[in-house]
């Protein structure tokens, strides 16, 4: 019986190389391609981060959050306030995201003790509280919001490029962090937690610890997405940043792409971007479609598009997880037939 453990297949090694090449190419977009393309890709990267974060929460840590918009809005809010205190705008974007993400640490002590639906709506209440507190702040002019005027120092072309590189860099960082997480011990323990929490705890897996890592990471990611969004849309209107529709988008992307897979959110984000681009002007019917798709996928294709493909064909593009070779010889064992007296 020859069984060995390997971390990557040939297919995944090839894909990894392709990804690196792609990233190198993407770095040149603001100089090589039009402003329109740059803007669109920036938006795509924001969706990507959001999808990956929500997928990490629900797919890896089993936490369905209907309130990630809390961090999205807080990141933008923190960035604006920092610029109002004279911090350089791009430093403010990074710092704001970090500060907003950091609020997840004390929050986790509390929220992670909630389960299932309680956690879901609890996070929504947190988002509403954040919204409620932010609109009380006169320096962001309540509901009307305020603009990121500190950007005016830079030319439109530079703004676009910086925002793009910030977005690209953030997407790489966060996807990379998730990748590293999945390949690490924490990743394996998350898988165990997702499959059976009690069993995982009984073999010494720190259930709370694993979830906390994902929770804080997701908060950081969403906060960063919020600051990127601020850099591109320039205005901060609290209602749109703290709106629950962001959760709707995240759920759509993660579900349709493939919950619990690494490649799924990427696919979901691309799909969502295309849908948004093509149908975003159709007002409510487009949103109805999103909701309907979420229901459809939740019930009928719970593994999402990528997950179903992965399951059918045993594919895995990127080397996350472990494979046992030589498994065929011990697959599907028959229970022990006879006993010797």
């Amino acid at each position, binding site marked *: 019986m020859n069984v060995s453990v390997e971390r990557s297949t040939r297919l995944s090694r090839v894909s990894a190389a392709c990804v690196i090449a792609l990233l190198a190419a993407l770095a040149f977009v603001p100089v090589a391609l039009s402003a329109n393309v740059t803007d669109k890709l920036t938006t795509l990267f924001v969706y990507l981060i959001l999808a990956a974060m929500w997928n990490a929460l629900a797919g890896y840590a089993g936490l369905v959050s209907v309130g990630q918009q809390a961090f999205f809005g807080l990141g933008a809010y923190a960035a604006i306030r920092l610029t109002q205190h004279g911090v350089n705008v791009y430093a403010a974007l990074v710092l704001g995201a970090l500060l907003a993400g950091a609020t997840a640490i004390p929050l986790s002590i509390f929220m992670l*003790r909630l389960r299932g*639906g309680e956690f879901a*709506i609890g996070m929504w*209440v947190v988002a509403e509280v954040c919204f409620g507190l932010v609109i009380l702040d006169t320096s962001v002019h309540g509901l009307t919001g305020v603009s990121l005027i500190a950007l005016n120092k830079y030319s439109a072309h530079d703004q676009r490029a910086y925002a793009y590189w910030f977005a690209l860099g953030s997407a790489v960082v966060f996807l990379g962090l998730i990748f590293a997480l999945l390949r690490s011990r924490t990743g394996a323990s998350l898988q165990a937690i997702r499959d059976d929490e009690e069993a995982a705890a009984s073999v010494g897996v720190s259930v709370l610890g694993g979830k906390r890592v994902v929770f804080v990471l997701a908060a950081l990611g969403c906060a960063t997405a919020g600051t990127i969004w601020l850099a591109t849309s320039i205005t901060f209107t609290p209602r749109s940043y703290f709106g*629950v529709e962001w959760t709707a988008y995240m759920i759509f992307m993660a579900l349709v792409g493939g919950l619990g897979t690494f490649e799924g959110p990427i696919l979901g984000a691309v799909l969502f971007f295309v849908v948004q681009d093509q149908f975003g002007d159709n007002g*409510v019917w487009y949103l*109805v479609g999103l909701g309907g798709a*979420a229901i459809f996928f939740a*019930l009928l294709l*719970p593994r999402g598009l990528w997950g179903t493909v992965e399951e059918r064909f045993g594919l895995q593009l990127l080397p996350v997880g472990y494979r046992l070779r030589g498994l065929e010889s011990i697959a599907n064992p028959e229970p022990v037939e006879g006993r010797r007296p």
Partner: protein
Amino acid sequence: MIWVNQIVQGILLGGYYAVLASGLSLMFGVMRIINLAHGDLAVLGAFLVFLFSKHGLSPWLALVIVLPVMGVAGWVLQRGLLERSLRAGPLTPLLATFGLLIVIENLLFEKFGPDERSLFPYIGKLGYDSWTITSQVIVGKIYVLILVVAVCLLGGLQLFLAWTPLGRALRATAEDPDTAELVGVDSRRVYALAAAIAVATAALAGAFLAMRSSFNPYSGSQQLIFAFEAVVIGGIGSLWGTLTGGIVLGVAQNIGAQLNPQWFLLAGHLVFLAVLALRLLLASLGGNWGLRTILGRA
């Protein structure tokens, strides 16, 4: 005295929250599902009653039609959507009901537009009639009606669960659906019944919202949060707790508003979080402080 009035108003508002939350509480107690579309189902009910009223039917008569219709809708929702969700996994009901929330809200917007609506003009003097208790304490008649209905509803549900064969079957299924099947209870039908009651009461709450205030297609999310907060404050799984929770929420909101009109919502949220924190603290110290009491003990 002004504070007394705020507390009284809060208690009355709590009556509305109790009606709104009773369905959410029932669904969670029996099926362990949190229906994220609950608030939107309430708003849907409000729009239906509104439609009838616009065409000349009294809202009360409209309710006689709308409540059974919404009950059937709840049955269909359970058999068609939630039953499948339950089988698929613990996360799925949340995802499916969230999708439903988005669908309902936006379909309502498509049909009715963004305007605020109200049943105020259709309920005659009831909308603005009130009793003056003292010079500073004034209770609106519609609010009192809602509170009375809340108490009757919760009491009725309690009696139903405690004394009727169907109620016993519901409690048994809530506790152990597999064993309930073994003694002849059709658990799927029981779940569907619970869902029907839940959605019908949601519709009733929606109508009440429309009578005492106004609503628009996107009001559902807010109502869901109120319902959820009321249930958690009062203790998940306890029907009378839902009334208590509603009252605490209403009082907190009104006191907050008295301090600063902008603090109405925030005060409610903060009290909710505080109660949640307290419960979690007590639970971690040991002992079952009502965090997951089953319906049978309500």
